[in-house]
């Protein structure tokens, strides 16, 4: 088997995890410094934002400042009053509803991705969402990137589902929170998968908190089960990177982003010698 610069590439898989997904930028930085390329990028939910940014080849500094502008708490404007209206029946809540006005999210995504399509990426990009009706995972690899990312981050009940390609789609984390299977199917040989467990609350003071908590329990259990299966069933090399956060990270905590990226770097550096060894052995 030949070794060479061409082969010094890994498939990057970035799982769901809201703001924590920014840790992928730390991983990416570490790979760049080690002169390891990215052969494909796969993302689910919050991870899709970073997979797309990486596949489009944005500068890391630019990606970092875009991230800080993206996850701000004003995204959640109107949430509490909409929740009250939905619970009391004042507002009708259907399968197409969400508790926040998603126009702002869409505009922010448009700022980041503009008119870019999957054809504009430097390496293949795959984004995972979930079909709202069948519950199955959907892999996006063509069309406007903004559609795929918007569908993939449609956190149930918070962001309304998104229609693309004639289907109604929700959060990729509902079916495939760490889509290693997509990288395997697309021929990834050395797969670096960064995943996150969702935060677990100790006290819950609102319906929304309980709902979020149930989602976290399910998604964490799906994450563990799918990871156990893919790890066992497939023979691609999967290097799991699970950054540890000593501080609590909640969604829309954008001032935590530098810390999150730092932890991503730290976790990636720990695995770097092993990644290097795999790539030189071929």
């Amino acid at each position, binding site marked *: 088997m030949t070794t060479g610069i061409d082969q010094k590439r890994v498939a990057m898989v970035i799982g769901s995890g809201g703001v924590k997904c920014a840790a992928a930028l730390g991983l990416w930085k570490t790979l760049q410094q080690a002169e390891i390329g990215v052969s494909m990028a796969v993302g689910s939910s919050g991870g899709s934002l970073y997979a797309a940014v990486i596949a489009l080849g944005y500068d890391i500094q630019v990606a970092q400042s875009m991230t800080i502008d993206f996850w701000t708490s004003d995204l959640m404007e109107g949430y509490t009053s909409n*929740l*009250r209206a*939905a*619970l*009391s*029946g004042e507002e*009708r*809540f*259907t*399968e197409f*509803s969400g*508790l926040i006005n998603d126009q702002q999210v869409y505009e922010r995504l448009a700022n980041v991705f503009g008119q870019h399509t999957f054809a504009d990426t430097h390496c293949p990009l795959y984004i995972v969402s*979930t079909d709202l*009706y069948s*519950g199955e995972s959907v892999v996006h690899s063509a069309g406007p990137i903004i559609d795929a990312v918007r569908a993939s981050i449609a956190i*149930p*009940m918070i962001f309304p589902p998104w229609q693309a390609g004639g289907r109604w789609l*929700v959060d990729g984390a*509902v*079916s*495939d929170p760490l889509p290693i299977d997509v990288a395997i199917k697309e021929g990834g040989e050395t797969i670096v998968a960064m995943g996150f467990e969702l935060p*677990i609350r*100790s*006290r*819950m*003071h*609102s*319906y929304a*908190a*309980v*709902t979020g*908590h*149930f*989602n*976290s*329990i*399910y*998604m*964490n*259990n*799906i994450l563990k*089960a*799918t990871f*156990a*299966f893919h790890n*066992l*069933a497939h023979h691609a090399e999967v290097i799991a990177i699970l950054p540890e956060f000593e501080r609590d990270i909640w969604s829309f905590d954008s001032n935590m982003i530098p810390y999150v990226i730092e932890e991503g770097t730290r976790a990636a550096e720990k695995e770097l010698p092993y990644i290097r060894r795999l790539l030189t052995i071929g």
Partner: protein
Amino acid sequence: MLAIKPYRPLEGKRLALVIGSGAVKCAAALGLWKVLSQAGIEIDLLVGCSGGSLFAATMALGMDVDECIEKTQRLWNRKVTEKRDMTSLLRAALPRVFNFNERFGMIDDQAMVQNLRSVFGEQTFEDTRTPLYVVATDFHSGEQLVLSKGRLVDALRASISIPFIWPPWPVDDRLLIDGSASNPMPVDVAIKDGVEIILAMGFESSYPRSVSSISRFAFHVNSIMTNNLLKANFAFHNLAHHAEIIAIIPEFEQPVGLFDTSKFPYVIEQGERAMQEQLPYLNRLLAAESSQVK
């Protein structure tokens, strides 16, 4: 050289029945049981999750098929779901005023608890004739918890705490919810117990046709996640372990809703049919020489 594990009893192989979550659909286990009884096949271990735990418990206590049908119909009927929990609903709408906490459910669980008490009384796991495990989920950590001690009423009530429908239930010092949030068809519990053959009856949750309220939306998303968890767990356990697992997945052409107890006879019949199909294979496994199983 033959490697015979020491726990294998001389008289033959042990058979476990795992009944997964699926509300009313879980009654299909009674159909399965009818087929086994007629064929003279005994179950050595019962594992139940969520709705499945109710049926596993009645079987484990040694009731016959007809008695089980009668008891479970008493447990699960329209009455247990008709009373909404107004306090919980008010707390959800106005959390500060009504002091919302995590013990939230849309339906008043008093009728369900009373029914459980009338069927199981003060009986404990020690009173079962067949060993029984009931699967629930720790509400705070999200991890699976296997119950095999204490009052049956507590274990069952915990295991059926369907998110958003019935509030969590405390057992010892833990708050527990529906087993389906961690392991909707817990074949691994039977595997760990060391049985040789596992009948795994599981159900996919069906989705409502349309979503008209936020709680229905939440419920819909939970069903999707339960189904994805079911598939992922089963794929893993099936691949990782070498016990014989026979999946019995009844098919329902008629829609069976969460509380559609009028469908009991139909559901039982479908369970019977699904088991009939697998009976020749089960018989073959039971008849095979122990020494052939390495």
